[in-house]
């Protein structure tokens, strides 16, 4: 047996020990739950043996810890070393249940061989005898579901100056970045998957916004020491209709697969991300997540409940980051940030706003201009193509200003372009529209082709 560096005590100082159940057993107990005086709770954990004795670590636990252990939220190791106590007991027990060699051992003097592993979570069905305990801590089944599907993020400080405690402002910043990354993924993924099925882009976007609200990350679990938080998303309550429910149920898993479970040092993997997501989407989804990973004050680990999924991260080099987030051509530090605003102005009917004076503009301003994320632009003609395209009806695209770049997006036409000015992005959009139409009109029927063919006049001698 391992040598112990504990302090001998005459006997185990726990009265009226009564076994509740074996949590782990095989032809005898391995981890057993007891109660003692004053309804306190203890665990006996089998760690060693010789020819005459089995050795057990014994420590006090709370029902709350037992609940978390049974639900896979707390490992056996975490229960042993949790700092709500200074020491554990070790006791050698023989065949006749005689207790000998009872020692109190400080937590950092427990033999390494006796400490359970990092992923020593409970992996079996919850025994019937504990169902009432578990139910008493699950306020409702909704919380239980959120915990089951949550991703558990643990931030650990790289410097132990303040122990393992995380600054509140850093925790808030982490939550904000994670939420931003996830919600941008929700929006991007939803539009990408359903743009072919919902021809009306306004409807598509409105539904995406509803999903962003419904799927706003919820804190399902929190623990302190290091900052550990379980982030989940409400996958139950339908939005719009049942036709999106399969996607809704899977979106958190998809985020795990596409964003969380990535080796950001693997260049091939980064190239796959570049293939799949346009630059704007990458900045919105992966940008905040990379900022979290590269925070020099903390390391990040992610698991699921039961810890069958585990991911930790190395710092991502600048060179690798720039594969996903290319360096900007304009130095944004030296350029003032620009934003779109909605303005309500009183003016003469028929006023030519391109010529309105500054004084008239200021006098006519009725309300403080409101910042907006995007505006819909209508195009009545596309003077590009051979011959120049003639539209059967106006088409629209969404114009937004992101990081001082104009973005023009029309998912139903699979177009997303970026330029430094609104004039350039307008031209870029029209050119891309014409170019795509010229390529697609001769291809086999598809949802995308149908979208183009529905708005472009086709002449009798044109192909398709």
């Amino acid at each position, binding site marked *: 047996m391992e040598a112990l560096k504990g302090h001998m005590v005459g006997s185990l100082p726990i009265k009226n020990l009564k076994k509740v159940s074996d949590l782990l057993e095989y*032809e*005898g107990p391995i981890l057993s739950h007891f109660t003692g005086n004053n309804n306190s709770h203890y665990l006996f954990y089998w760690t060693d043996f010789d*020819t005459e004795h089995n050795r057990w670590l014994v420590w006090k636990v709370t029902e709350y810890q037992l609940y978390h252990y049974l639900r896979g939220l707390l490992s056996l190791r975490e229960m042993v070393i949790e700092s709500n106590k200074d020491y554990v007991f070790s006791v050698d027990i023989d065949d006749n249940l005689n207790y000998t060699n009872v020692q109190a051992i400080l937590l950092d003097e427990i033999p390494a061989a006796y400490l359970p592993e990092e992923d020593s979570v409970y992996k*079996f069905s919850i025994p019937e005898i504990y169902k009432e305990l578990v139910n008493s801590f699950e306020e409702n089944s909704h919380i239980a579901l959120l915990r089951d599907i949550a991703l558990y993020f643990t931030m650990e400080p790289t410097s132990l100056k303040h122990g393992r405690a995380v600054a509140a402002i850093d925790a808030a910043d982490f939550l904000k970045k994670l939420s931003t990354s996830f919600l941008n993924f929700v929006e991007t993924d939803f539009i990408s998957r359903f743009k072919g099925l919902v021809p009306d882009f306004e409807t598509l976007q409105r539904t995406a916004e509803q999903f962003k609200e419904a799927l706003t990350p919820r804190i399902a679990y929190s623990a302190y020491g290091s900052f550990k938080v379980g982030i989940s998303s409400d996958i139950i309550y339908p939005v719009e209709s049942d036709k999106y429910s399969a996607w809704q149920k899977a979106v958190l898993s998809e985020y795990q697969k596409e964003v969380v479970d990535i080796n950001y040092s693997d260049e091939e993997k980064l190239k796959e991300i570049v293939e799949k997501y346009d630059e704007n989407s990458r900045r919105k989804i992966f940008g905040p997540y990379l900022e979290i990973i590269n925070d020099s004050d903390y390391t990040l680990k992610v698991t699921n409940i039961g810890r069958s999924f585990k991911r930790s991260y190395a710092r991502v080099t600048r060179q690798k980051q720039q594969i996903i987030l290319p360096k900007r051509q304009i130095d944004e530090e030296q350029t003032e940030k620009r934003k779109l605003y909605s303005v309500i102005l009183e003016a003469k009917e028929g006023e030519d706003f391109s010529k309105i004076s500054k004084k008239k503009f200021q006098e006519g301003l009725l309300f403080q201009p409101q910042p907006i994320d995007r505006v819909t632009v209508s195009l009545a003609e596309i003077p590009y193509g051979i011959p120049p395209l003639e539209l059967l009806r106006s088409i629209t695209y969404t114009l937004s200003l992101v990081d001082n770049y104009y973005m023009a997006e029309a998912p139903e036409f699979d177009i997303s372009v970026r330029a430094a000015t609104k004039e350039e992005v307008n031209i870029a959009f029209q050119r891309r529209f014409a170019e795509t139409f010229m390529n697609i009109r001769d291809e086999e029927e598809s949802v995308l082709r149908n979208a183009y063919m529905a708005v472009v006049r086709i002449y009798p001698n044109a192909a398709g």
Partner: protein
Amino acid sequence: MAKNSNSTTSVDKVDRSLKYQDLIDQENLTECPKNCKESEMEAYRWVVIPIDNENNFLPVMQYSQKINRPMRRLTTDDERCAGCAGLSMFNTLENAKTRFAGFERRTQTLLGYTHVATGKISIDTGIISEVSPDSGHFALYEYKTVDLRTTFTIASTIF
């Protein structure tokens, strides 16, 4: 003292008294084993190699005495019936491996098993307890002349 076994019948010539009835009597265990019956099924058991190692098919009480190691007990009630007369088994290979995999590496090392053996249990082998619906675990109480080392074979490593 209740004996939970069927006596030898002249019809089938299989001795259906339990192999460890003497120990059950010695331990003063009444109703041991309880709620058991004969069955026909594939069974799986944690073992070490070679399969005919004399300790592979001993109830834990005999096993502990054989290898000079104390039984794991924390109360006087800790499973005495299965401990002196039963053999732990699983109903599928997957259940046998899953249960072992659910233990800490330290626990796995202390237990010492390396392989899973499989064999067919018939009505002539013994009686079995109820199979746990969660883990697939059950206890087999052998009949007197049964020697599972000759009927079980190695199915897989335990990892």
